[in-house]
């Protein structure tokens, strides 16, 4: 080893440890999954690519209005003839089967998700897939216990569900598991950049012998989604995605009887007090904003750090950020994967440039970016004020804005100074302060001395413009039962 005078930690050299791709079998093209079968769509097709290499993975059918109508009809038929009448304990067993098959095919799903989404295999393997399976397992158990939910036992009918690209399979499970447990049938549209795990899930439904039409998967972009949520025979709309699209959906369903839940954007405050265990807090800050490349609606994108420890926290944070490994999503050592699309990368770049123009100071972790694909280094902005756009707008990327505060009251005021209200984090050793902050924060989820924790039993969803309704837990059933009218 070459001698060095430097006493700073040198990054370990890691040999690549790639997960094998051979476990997945991607077809050249995919149709729509309607009525239990894969069918050709009537519309055009589009390509899904690997964001880490820009390699074309498959040709995907784009469902047009006629396709959407067929899918809704299939779901309606399955609801009125089979699923809506089936005793809960029988529905439960299908959902348990699906949970088991997700577990059995876990590695395949993890690899496919990493390839199509760009997120590290470490995350798909340890977070996305196991929690998706757990979600089905949890709601399977509810199917024959709805009378204990407090929301009655009557299903709504057909649910039209539109999910984002940041956690494709996991968001699918959050949508489909409670809907089916409550006796509804679904038409689900995955995001146009990440359709592959949803299409593999369709195959899982076949393996589970799920009755045809209970789950229908239609692929496409915004037009397909619009056709689905505005279809007159859809009883319930569930959407996870941007606040802008959520607002459009709320307008589209105005004046109808459709029930709606929306899980939208966020600009979460991650609040670090001076008595916090700082190393743990730094880990939590890193997890809060760089987990999943910051493509997380509940990401801790605003760090509020108490002035007395701000310098120290930032020094430790930058040191930690320098050790993050960015690169091949299939490498088991990778911490930060690819940005999901060129479009998203452009948005992150634009807001970061605005951050600099408005006077904040930019620092990025010194990591090499691959030549192909879409990449953005973990980045932190200091000297940010509440007026800056990077403190107000959701960047949805690995970009942290740092603000400081002196008193708890100031922290509360700054944390709540946002149209969003999805999540928040609090770091302090003082229990009473955690609870005081939790009460004062206008956010649907508050993490104390931890961040980005998810569990099927735990309700998730936002205040204010982060949407309405909750997913997960007993409360998650309210969205899919007649007695749960919000």
């Amino acid at each position: 080893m070459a001698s060095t005078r430097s006493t700073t930690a040198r990054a370990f050299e890691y040999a690549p440890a790639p997960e094998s791709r051979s476990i997945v079998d991607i077809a050249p093209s995919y149709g729509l999954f309607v009525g239990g079968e894969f069918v050709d769509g009537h519309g055009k097709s589009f390509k899904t690519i690997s964001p880490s290499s820009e390699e074309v993975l498959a040709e995907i059918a784009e469902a047009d209005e006629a396709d959407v109508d067929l899918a809704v009809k299939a779901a309606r038929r399955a609801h009125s003839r089979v699923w809506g009448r089936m005793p809960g304990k029988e529905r439960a067993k299908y959902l348990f089967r699906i949970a088991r098959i997700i577990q059995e095919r876990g590695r395949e799903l993890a690899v496919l998700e990493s390839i199509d989404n760009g997120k590290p295999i470490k995350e798909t393997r340890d977070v996305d897939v196991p929690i998706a399976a757990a979600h089905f397992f949890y709601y399977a158990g509810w199917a024959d216990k709805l009378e204990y939910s407090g929301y009655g036992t009557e299903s709504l009918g057909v649910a039209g569900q539109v999910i984002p690209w940041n956690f494709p399979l996991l968001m699918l499970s959050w949508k489909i598991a409670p809907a089916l447990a409550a006796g509804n049938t679904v038409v689900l549209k995955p995001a146009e950049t990440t359709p592959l795990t949803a299409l593999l899930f369709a195959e899982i439904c076949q393996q589970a012998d799920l009755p045809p039409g209970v789950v229908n998967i239609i692929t496409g972009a915004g037009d397909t989604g619009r056709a689905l949520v505005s279809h007159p025979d859809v009883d319930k709309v569930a959407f996870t995605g941007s606040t802008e699209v959520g607002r459009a959906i709320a307008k589209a369903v105005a004046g109808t009887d459709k029930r709606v839940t929306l899980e939208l954007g966020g600009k979460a405050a991650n609040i670090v007090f001076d008595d916090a265990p700082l190393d743990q807090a730094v880990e939590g800050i890193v997890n809060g904003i760089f987990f999943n490349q910051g493509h997380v609606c509940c990401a801790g994108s605003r760090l509020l750090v108490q002035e007395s420890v701000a310098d120290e926290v930032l020094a430790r944070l930058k040191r930690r950020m320098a050790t993050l490994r960015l690169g091949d999503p299939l490498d088991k050592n990778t911490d930060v994967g690819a940005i999901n699309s060129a479009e998203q990368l452009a948005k992150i770049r634009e807001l970061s440039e605005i951050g600099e123009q408005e006077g904040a100071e930019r620092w990025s972790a010194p990591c090499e970016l691959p030549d192909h694909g879409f990449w953005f280094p973990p980045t932190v902005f200091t000297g940010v004020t509440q007026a800056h756009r990077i403190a107000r707008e959701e960047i949805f990327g690995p970009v942290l804005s740092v603000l400081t505060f002196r008193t708890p009251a100031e922290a509360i005021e700054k944390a709540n100074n946002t149209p969003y209200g999805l999540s928040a984090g609090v770091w302090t050793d003082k229990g009473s302060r955690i609870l005081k902050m939790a009460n004062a924060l206008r956010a649907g989820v508050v993490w104390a001395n931890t961040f980005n924790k998810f569990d099927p039993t735990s309700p998730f969803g936002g205040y204010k413009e982060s949407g309405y309704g909750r997913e997960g837990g007993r409360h998650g059933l309210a969205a899919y039962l007649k007695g749960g009218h919000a």
Partner: protein
Amino acid sequence: MARAEVRKTYKLFIGGEFPRSESGHSYVVEDAQGRFVANAALASRKDARDAVSAARKAFGGWAGRTAYNRGQVLYRVAEVMEDRRPQFVEALRQGEGLTAAAAGRVLDETIDRLVWYAGWTDKLTQVVGNANPVAGPFFNLSTPEPTGVVAVIAPQESSLLGLVSVLAPVIAAGNAVVVTASVLRPLAAVTFSEVLATSDVPGGVVNILTGSLDRTAVTLASHMDVNAIDLTGLAGDPAQAAALEVEAAANLKRVRRAPAVEPDWSAEPGIGRMTDVLETKTVWHPIGV
């Protein structure tokens, strides 16, 4: 010449192992027509005490597992049982004199009951626990916790569905259990213990005793390290049930009394058999900066 079959020895299930009774005693088990089937182990007082020790040892680990994991394990029991249907259908025909079709229906109910309770492990807290809006700056939360080691006198008539219906809720709620099987129809319980042993249920979480209640039931009811007792299997024997309830008072066991007649086990169970073996813990914490 016809092949002589290899017959199974029906043993106790204690601490995840299959011992004979330490007393060396056994008793004759007959089928529904009164024909000899097998000699089953006649559990002694000492066997009952050993079973309680094994249950106590297993309790902490089982209660400490996540509710999700307990649900997965219970679901696994259902899976393995489904896989061994012919064996249980035969046990029910032999022990309860059912036709193959009726035995199949009882087995369906039994497996579905396990699935029902598998789904309860991680929902019970959400249904019976809650936050309490106390009139002061305090966080106040009540959650259920398992009471500990539970003794169960299993039903006498329904030797499999009845057994699972009284046993599953106790372990779903996170307790460890010592159960006495139907005295005259113990073989389905022994076969069920073999399913438990191959289903990721940690040893000692379920312990099954066969034989006369004269020895075991009093020992369990009076045992100072048993936290609760379910007397369901004494349906129709109020004098014996009352006597055991008196014994149970020594350490204030939670007692589930015997019904007048054995219930219809095909009815949906409700959550009472779980809440009977739960404690409620309430945590207070101040709120302030």
